[in-house]
């Protein structure tokens, strides 16, 4: 039983990683720093040998709730309340985005997308595994090793035609 749990956790983590990186890159997070605080984090990442566009991506996640926050909060509310929790989470994430001076396209669309994915997959993988999977996904970007993570994000941004 323990082995099955770990396999479900890793699969949920991969789904969450693909979801929030693709949505954030499509809505132009690596392209320019949205707020002034993201600029200094991007330049600091470049000083230690990383990529500048990946640095802007990581700075924008810190300074305003984007698709990563939308994914985590929508999966929490799906675990507690069902499908209508995902809609409430989308509304509250939009208000939080406007408080941080951000247009708010990425957060709400990320929340709605993960709600749809959980509703389609809930006989196989429960909503509880997506909460743990999102923590694994954010740990691989923000917490593990900043230099190589920013180089990987820069390559993805270049392939999707956002950034240089």
């Amino acid at each position, binding site marked *: 039983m323990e082995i099955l749990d770990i396999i479900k956790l890793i699969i949920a983590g991969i789904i969450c990683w693909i979801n929030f990186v693709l949505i954030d890159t499509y809505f132009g997070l690596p392209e320019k720093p949205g707020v002034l605080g993201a600029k200094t984090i991007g330049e600091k990442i470049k000083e230690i040998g990383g990529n500048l566009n990946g640095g802007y991506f990581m700075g924008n996640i810190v300074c305003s709730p984007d698709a990563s926050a939308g994914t985590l909060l929508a999966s929490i509310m799906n675990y507690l309340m069902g499908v209508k929790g995902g809609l409430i989470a989308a509304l509250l994430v939009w208000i939080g985005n406007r408080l941080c001076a951000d247009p708010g396209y990425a957060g709400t669309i990320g929340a709605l997308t993960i709600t749809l994915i959980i509703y389609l997959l809930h006989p196989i993988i429960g909503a509880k595994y997506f909460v743990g999977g999102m*923590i694994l996904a954010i740990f691989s970007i923000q917490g593990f090793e900043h230099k190589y993570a920013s180089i990987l994000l820069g390559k993805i941004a270049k392939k999707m035609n956002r950034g240089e």
Partner: protein
Amino acid sequence: MDIIEGVIGFIALLMVFRIFLTRSRARKLLYLCCLSFCISALIALYVKSPMGGIVAIIYFISSTLTSNAIAYTIEQVKDIE
């Protein structure tokens, strides 16, 4: 003991020690962001009712406001010096 709470708790403890030991100011904010993700998930898994979800959302958004203000001040202090 549940395995999901164990994994999240291990990551949170690792993040706390890395915040305490890193010397750069900008990289501490990145680790603090990851820690607030972990605490928000732990609150929702500990309190199993819709009120716990509301607490998790409000805590996460106000934690983001704090990080935004600190990062803005670091940029302005760099201009003054």
